[in-house]
């Protein structure tokens, strides 16, 4: 009964991963036979200033859309974990960007960031603040991209935190209150440790999606201006499907995989490993 799913995963996941690894040691342009060139692609990738920029940008983007966004999401979840009458309404509002296509929301934000007729500059000028060329400024393009990333991803993080908060044992808190622990103290010594499994899950899924941000960049900036918003995924796409350097692109994709693997394992060590005992 498991055979159809297993075969599917073997053909479309297992073989491709092995193939990506093998091809990463070759020079291959699809038209001619792949030629073995050792680790040259990896040397090229780490020597290429644009790909290095892509790695740095990916890390910066991940920093803001993972730990920073998680903190905001937890804050919103804590606010919603009270006796609010409109809780469902708020939860829905925060979650909607999550279910809509990144291409679609990126187009909407492209229009919001429009320097001449965009909503953002109109709101800023209402408050007497200067207008900006958001997406064509080397200073503002990355923050603009990150903002959309946080905006779209916050719903899922919040939702998982909210579900976890609601399943926390109430009696522990009663005991802590009786013992005179302040609410801040309760948060740091009870809530945060109890949320560890949720934090681990949110972290892993968010890191995976942050490192694979592509649609946003494709629509908003095309990696520009001056490579200030290019990401590892975008460089992989360009190498493979614009320059047809397939072997090189595979090496870049293996580097991406290794980044994710390290982050996941490190987090498991710090976070998940401990919760495994419960």
């Amino acid at each position, binding site marked *: *009964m*498991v055979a*159809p*799913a*297993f075969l*599917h*995963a073997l*053909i*479309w*996941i*297992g*073989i*491709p*991963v092995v193939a990506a690894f093998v*091809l990463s040691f070759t020079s291959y342009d*699809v038209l001619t036979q792949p030629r073995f060139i050792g680790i040259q692609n990896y040397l090229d990738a780490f020597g290429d200033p644009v790909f290095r920029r892509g790695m740095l940008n990916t890390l910066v983007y991940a920093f803001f859309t993972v730990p920073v966004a998680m903190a905001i999401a937890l804050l919103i979840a804590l*606010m919603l974990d009270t006796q*609010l009458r409109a809780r469902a309404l*708020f939860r*829905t509002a*925060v979650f*909607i*960007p999550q*279910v*809509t*296509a990144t*291409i*679609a*929301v990126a*187009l*909407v934000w*492209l*229009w919001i960031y429009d320097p001449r*007729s965009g*909503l953002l*500059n*109109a709101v800023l000028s209402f408050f007497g603040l200067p207008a900006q060329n958001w997406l064509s400024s080397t200073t503002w393009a990355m923050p603009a991209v990150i903002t959309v990333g946080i*905006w779209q991803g916050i*719903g899922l993080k919040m*939702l*998982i935190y909210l579900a976890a908060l609601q399943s926390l044992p109430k009696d522990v808190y009663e005991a802590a209150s009786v013992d005179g622990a302040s609410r801040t103290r309760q948060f740091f010594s009870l809530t945060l440790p109890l949320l560890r*499994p*949720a934090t681990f899950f*949110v972290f892993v899924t968010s890191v*995976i999606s942050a490192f*694979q941000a*592509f*649609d946003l960049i494709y629509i908003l900036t095309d990696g520009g201006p001056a490579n200030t918003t290019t990401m590892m*995924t975008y460089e*992989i*796409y360009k190498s*493979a*499907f614009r320059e047809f350097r*397939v072997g090189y692109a*595979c090496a870049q*994709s*293996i580097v*991406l*995989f290794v980044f*994710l693997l390290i982050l996941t394992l490190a987090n498991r060590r710090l976070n998940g490993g401990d919760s495994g005992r419960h």
Partner: protein
Amino acid sequence: MAGTDLVAAPPRTTPGSSRTPAARRRLERGALYLVLTVIAVVMVVPFVWMILTSLKTPQDLAATPPSFLPAQWAWGNYAEALAAAPFLTYARNSLIIAVSHTAINLVIASMAGYALARLRFRGSELVFIGFVAALMIPTYTKIIPEFLIVRFMPLFGGNDILGQGGTGWLDTWWALIVPGAVTPFAVFLFRQFYLDLPVELEEAARLDGVSELGIWARIMTPLVKPAFITVALLTFESSWNNFLWPLLVTRTDSMRVIQVGLSVFRTENDTQWAFLMAGTTLATVPMVVLFLLGQKYFVRGFANAGIK
């Protein structure tokens, strides 16, 4: 709107009582509602702006600063947008793919999830670890070889037995549907749900001589209906929203999906914001409606995967 009655809330407390705990709580509550309202507005305004833009005339769009509401509601924009680009064809293609993915994923992943949860067979542990590992593989690490497999698919699209000479599955429904049809995430989620069912049921059925396939189809599966709805919604949503894969494997306009169609329309008609936002509305509204209808299941799907 909710904000206005919050601002009105504090004066209702009688003067001098502002230091009593009840009044303080009410103030705190007011502040909470205010902050949450601001957040909710930030989350929703882009969608409102999208719909309002789709109903504006070119004169409205050129205005600086832009007016929030259209001076004249241009309902005709939708008909004109559909005439300017085949958005309906794109949406139909997306629908066909999303429905196919959902149907295939429900059948194949639930069978696998059931087998992994309930049946002990040689290598079952290893297969399960394989699926968990597959969950971890980034799309970008497998997408290039996936593209090559599709491109060199033997005996399709003019290819010979070695996959040379033609275009394989490129620009066909095969490429759009087959590679993404079964997701390890669905297998994993189904396994979680099947694990929770009592063993007695299955044993009783087995004693009655029901086949394993029969136990799965007629005894166990009706008990995990919520899992089916959850996986169906999540699969449909991610399939409808997918961009990169359909971008890579389609060439002709008639095979494009809605997300690719939107992106192409944007590059070809750079300043047609009203039409573009009309198309974007078409691409997002079905998902928002689906989410509102099945919110409970979306939440359960994500929460289940997270907490167990």
